[in-house]
């Protein structure tokens, strides 16, 4: 609308013109299915081919697979019941008391990769690539790829260039979420072989409120590039709280009795290939480490 039209005073004809305009709009009946789902389909991970089949063609009814699924869930349920007779979490109490080290994830075969998921900024349209495979001799896992910090051309993203690997949350019978209980331990022990890049280790714990969903406890992992393996021990008291990548002012220690996932992220703004080889990830109890939380919260005395 040009400027002189706006400055004209509205009169009755304007009202009728509005009414007339509305009649020109097509009548959209309310749908039971949201419109966007019908047109666009559900979220498609970048790199995966488009699935243009009609909904009834996507049904995959496999009786034997269903039976296998039922058997698996009931086996897990039976294991949950019978484990209690052995001891807490299926281990005798003496094992709990004597345990000073526990290997939580180790990569000894292709099936160990199923517990992990990788992601990179190609999800938002960037150009990084990340792959995960089992290393030589089925003894390690290799996270490799290329980092590219070119931001996607969508007009709103300013920074880009990250790759990450995250463990899947353990599931009990019938897909209920299970948590790791690491309250007997106080240190994270990793055996890694990196390429000199600085990585970030992220641990997520169980949350209740939806605004805590993206709460993560992070710490740095500086890798040496050499051919020698690196044993990294990070006390859990050093992990600081971040939310969606931003360090929070109100810090609190990580509670170890309900841990969900661990993840490794690379986002050091350096373009180029990267590699991280992990042998195992474990937790251990260091009796000499008595620090409860590394970061203090001061309420500074205000000068009057």
């Amino acid at each position, binding site marked *: 609308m040009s400027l002189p039209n706006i400055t004209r005073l509205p009169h009755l004809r304007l009202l009728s013109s509005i009414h007339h305009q509305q009649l020109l709009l097509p009548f959209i009946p309310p749908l039971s299915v949201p419109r966007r789902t019908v047109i666009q389909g559900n979220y498609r991970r970048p790199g995966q081919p488009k699935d243009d089949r009609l909904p009834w063609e996507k049904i995959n009814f496999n009786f034997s697979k269903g039976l296998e699924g039922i058997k698996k869930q009931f086996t897990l349920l039976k294991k949950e019941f019978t484990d209690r007779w052995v001891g807490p979490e299926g281990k005798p109490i003496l094992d709990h008391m004597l345990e000073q080290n526990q290997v939580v994830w180790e990569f000894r075969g292709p099936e160990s990769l199923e517990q992990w998921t990788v992601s990179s900024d190609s999800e938002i349209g960037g150009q990084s690539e990340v792959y995960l495979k089992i290393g030589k001799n089925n003894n390690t896992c290799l996270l490799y790829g290329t980092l590219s910090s070119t931001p996607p051309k969508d007009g709103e993203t300013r920074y880009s260039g990250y790759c990450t690997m995250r463990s899947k949350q353990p599931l009990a019978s019938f897909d209920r979420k299970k948590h790791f209980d690491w309250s*007997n331990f106080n240190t994270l022990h990793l055996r890694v072989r990196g390429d000199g890049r600085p990585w970030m280790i992220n641990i997520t714990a169980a949350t209740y409120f939806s605004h805590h969903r993206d709460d993560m406890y992070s710490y740095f992992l500086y890798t040496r590039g050499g051919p020698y393996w690196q044993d990294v021990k990070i006390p859990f008291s050093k992990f600081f709280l971040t939310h969606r990548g931003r360090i929070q002012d109100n810090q609190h220690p990580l509670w170890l009795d309900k841990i969900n996932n661990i993840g490794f992220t690379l986002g050091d703004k350096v373009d180029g290939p990267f590699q991280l080889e992990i042998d195992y990830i474990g937790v251990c109890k260091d*009796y000499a480490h008595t620090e409860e939380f590394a970061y203090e919260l001061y309420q500074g005395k205000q000068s009057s």
Partner: protein
Amino acid sequence: MNPYVLAILLFGLGLGTTITFASSHLTTAWMGLEINTLAILPLMAQHHHPRAVEATTKYFLTQATAAAMLLFATTTNAWITGQWDIQQITHPLPMTMLPLALALKIGLAPLHAWLPEVLQGLDLTTGLILSTWQKLAPFALLLQIPPHNPNMLIILGLTSTLVGGWGGLNQTQLRKILAISSIAHLGWMILVLQFSPSLTLLTLILYFAMTFSTFVVFKINKSTNINSLATSWAKTPALTAIIPLVLLSLGGLPPLSGFMPKWLILQELVAQGLLPTATITAFSALFSLYFYLRLSYAMTLTISPNTPMGLTPWRLHTHQSTLPLAVCTMTTIALLPLTPLSITLFTP
């Protein structure tokens, strides 16, 4: 916490329970319960850790639901019978809803699911207040409501003792174990409520003494799981020697005081002709005894081999008063010979 705020909250806790004790009108009783709930919420969330806030929220939601159910039963009773007296409830609907609302308040099975999670999110002192003081007011009401549905209370009690036994088998977290032990003890108390309310009161008082001792010992040792309990021999050797007796008293072993309520309750159940109930309850006590025994085993009967001798924790002089702990521990261990006296004192 600001000492004035702490004083107000503790005063509010005391006030709430006292109002419920002193009330004969159902609405006044409900008010006392609400004051109790509201006063403890800031105490629970004072550390602002997300888990503490989660525990506070879960506690608030369950207690508010229970209070709403209580108020609904109250108003239904007033609508039907025209009066608000606690001891004159006659219609079956409020007489069924009131015990259920109070069962949710104290955490009886099958309304117990909130208790382990809530206790796990709290520090030990607030957990102690939750396990002991917060049970007084609902029990004051439960003792006054005339019994209507005998089966309901027995089912609540049996389920609680069974859940209290079964649920503790998988736990290594001490606060969850104490929550589950609370469920079991409350089950024992409810079983005998309609036959001998004085026995319920006796069990409640002894349960307070036992739980107080346990919580304070865990607080002194700063331990929240079985593993850290295993190194308590290096911190407080004298306490480590006495605590198995407290734990076995919780489990109901003679010749400790914890046996007294269990014995008298079983005797009363048998006298009322409820032999299968009594047998099932006695067997479920074995489950509970198993995990108390496990705690004593971990704490006293083993010396953790992987504590390097050069790194035993500092034995710092504790600043908290040990007199309450001493009194409660002696009550927990040594009072069984006074059973005839307690029968005389508690029977009308």
